[in-house]
């Protein structure tokens, strides 16, 4: 078999299949994140997007996929499967779909690897994009949040469809024949959504899943911490990820000898899925370029870059689609290397600057990806579609902010009551209020008290001053303590004297009263 295929073709084909598998996983998982995906088209040839499609690489997904692949490729009897399941807050879980990438023995020897196979794989990925929005799990995943989350699991080997219940349906996304076998991509999805949960009340699901039980519990903590091998399609804090720091770069460096990160792409993601750790600088060059130093790697989110070497396709002569000799890469390819410790690029915010030049030093720094990951409770925000166009800093500014909001639930932290209310309160107390009032005033220096709706430039006695003065009026004499204790006794004693005095002056009083009438 390999005799018919040139070594270069074989190598390319393996590479295509590997990256096709990785991209397939990315598309499937991203379709189940619960958000709308939007990536930018880029007219200038970067030569860096696999299959000429702008599909972002979420590092931990790549990590998981590579872990599952363990350096092998899907082959006959060993399929790559992505299982999508649903887990409720009560811990019940249910498999929803299984996507399978299989290889069978039927070979198509005459097909041209680096052209036809490549283009057909690209078409298959587009079909996958379309089909992932059509299966029932898509609607469920868009509504995930408080009540349930969607998890994924990647495994290799025999396809297991037992968990899908009775009557599951299969849809075939497509096939691509290659000289070493035929690649088939298909999906088996559950149709019977009867659920194990005891509680069944939520109108949300009346339409999409007739018998689906929904749990209304609003859990705040992460209940899915111990999902074992399952991975949430949206989840928080990378620190909890079992994988730890993404060794994607190291892995990929095992496969390819050189790596470089492309400049930040023009693609940015609206995903809620976001997390803090640095993205690694690894994704492979999609084009079948034969660089003498092996194939350069590429940043997780490849995009347009000014200085990327043109990776030529096969030369086309006339109208023939036959591919001729592949030109070798310009030597500038080999000049781009990722810095020795790409993981040290730190927290990086993904910038969309289209002007980023590949040739700029430490390219991994320029490509920064900030993902803030939110736990299930996101739901109050409408899923507005955030397009990627011209969003770099603004978007990066949103992400951490939103993350913070989720982190510190604002409902939990009520704003502090203003301290300025105490002087007023102090003055309302009758006992010793002048003291307290003054004390209160001393404690709280009201600087620039500007009462609402008043102008302070008209009168010397403005509203603020007025207010301040009359906040602490002097106490009434009769209310002061030192007087009250003695006054009663004195009053009683002085009464007879006062009465005698008044009787003496009774005529004056009468005259006074007559003047009043």
């Amino acid at each position: 078999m390999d005799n018919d295929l040139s070594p270069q073709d074989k190598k390319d084909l393996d590479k295509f299949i590997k990256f096709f598998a990785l991209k397939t996983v990315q598309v499937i998982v991203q379709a189940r994140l619960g958000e709308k995906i939007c990536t930018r088209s880029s007219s200038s040839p970067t030569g860096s997007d696999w299959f000429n499609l702008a599909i972002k690489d979420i590092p931990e997904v790549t990590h998981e996929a590579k872990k599952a692949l363990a350096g092998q490729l899907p082959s006959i009897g060993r399929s790559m499967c992505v299982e999508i399941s649903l887990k409720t807050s009560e811990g019940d879980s249910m498999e929803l779909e299984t996507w399978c990438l299989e290889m069978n023995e039927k070979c198509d020897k005459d097909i041209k690897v680096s052209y036809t196979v490549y283009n057909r794989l690209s078409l298959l990925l587009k079909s996958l994009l379309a089909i992932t929005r059509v299966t029932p799990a898509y609607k469920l995943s868009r509504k995930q949040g408080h009540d349930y989350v969607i998890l994924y699991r990647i495994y290799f080997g025999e396809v297991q469809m037992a968990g899908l219940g009775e009557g599951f349906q299969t849809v075939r996304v497509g096939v691509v024949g290659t000289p070493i076998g035929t690649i088939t991509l298909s999906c088996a999805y559950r149709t019977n959504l009867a659920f194990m949960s005891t509680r069944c009340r939520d109108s949300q699901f009346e339409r999409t899943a007739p018998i689906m039980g929904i749990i209304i519990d609003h859990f705040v903590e992460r209940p899915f911490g111990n999902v074992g091998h399952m991975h949430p399609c949206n989840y928080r804090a990378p620190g909890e990820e079992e994988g730890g720091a993404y060794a994607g770069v190291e892995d990929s460096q095992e496969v390819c000898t050189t790596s470089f990160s492309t400049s930040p792409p023009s693609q940015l993601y609206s995903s809620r899925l976001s997390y803090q750790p640095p993205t690694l600088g690894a994704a492979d060059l999609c084009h079948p370029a034969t660089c003498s130093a092996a194939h350069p790697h590429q940043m997780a989110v490849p995009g347009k870059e000014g200085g990327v070497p043109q990776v030529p396709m096969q030369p086309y002569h006339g109208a023939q689609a036959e591919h001729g000799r592949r030109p070798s890469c310009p030597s500038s390819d080999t000049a781009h290397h990722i810095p020795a410790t790409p993981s040290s690029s730190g927290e990086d915010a993904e910038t969309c600057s289209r002007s980023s030049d590949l040739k700029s030093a430490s390219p991994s720094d320029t490509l920064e990806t900030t993902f803030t990951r939110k736990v299930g409770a996101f739901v109050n925000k409408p899923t507005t579609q955030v397009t990627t166009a011209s969003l770099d800093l603004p978007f990066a500014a949103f992400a951490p902010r939103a993350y913070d909001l989720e982190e510190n639930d604002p409902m939990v932290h009520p704003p502090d009551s203003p301290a300025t209310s105490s002087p007023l309160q102090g003055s309302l107390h009758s006992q010793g209020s002048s003291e307290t009032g003054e004390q209160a005033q001393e404690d709280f220096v009201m600087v620039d008290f500007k009462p609402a709706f008043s102008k302070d430039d008209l009168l010397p006695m403005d509203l603020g001053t007025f207010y301040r003065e009359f906040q602490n009026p002097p106490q009434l004499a009769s209310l002061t303590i030192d007087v009250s204790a003695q006054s009663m006794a004195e009053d009683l004693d002085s009464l007879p004297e006062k009465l005698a005095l008044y009787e003496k002056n009774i005529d004056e009083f009468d005259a006074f009263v007559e003047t009043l009438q």
Partner: protein
Amino acid sequence: MNCRSEVLEVTVEGRQVDEAMLALLHTILLHRSTGKFHYKKEGTYSIGTVGTQDIDCDFIDFTFVRVTSDELDRVIRKAVGEFKDALSNSGSDGMGQISLEFYQKKKSRWPFSDECIPWEVWSIKVNVVNLANEQERQICREKVGEKLGEKVINIVEVINRHEYLPKMPTQSEVDNVFDTSLKDVQPYLYKITYQITDSLGTSVSTTMRRLIKDTLAL
């Protein structure tokens, strides 16, 4: 070669016509568009990148994927808008058909003008119904969503048969195969036409042919 022809049929409510047509047309164009070609010397070329975008429908429980290209979206929306207007103005029971045709240009010698040879035609037959109350509309939302899902699966199935596709052209020939007028993506040359069926069911009696694509040569 023989032109491949596919027919899809949908039954929708009046306000769902736009979105249903957009969903199907964009799904087809997603598969029939590539990145922009950039030719270099030695006859090599490189291909730009195509981005994709999820679009939620407002009147249908459905989400579809289209290429991220505002220009292309505008052209398609315009065509669909005209189709919808024609449907509503026809006054009949609301049946019509919109066709998306992919073609190649073949240069002819003077004085003959270029020929347009279609190699794939997608026809979407639409039947518009009127619904009486909100509950029916709600059911219609879901049903049409499911139906569109089935249509997308049909489209994908046809495309994955990998039947005839024009050969990749040289730089001088690229405009005979691809529509290079857009700045971010490059679909195959296409044109959109529509027909409104009158109440008698004959499809030709009130036929309005509108050619949306300006690259069409007559």
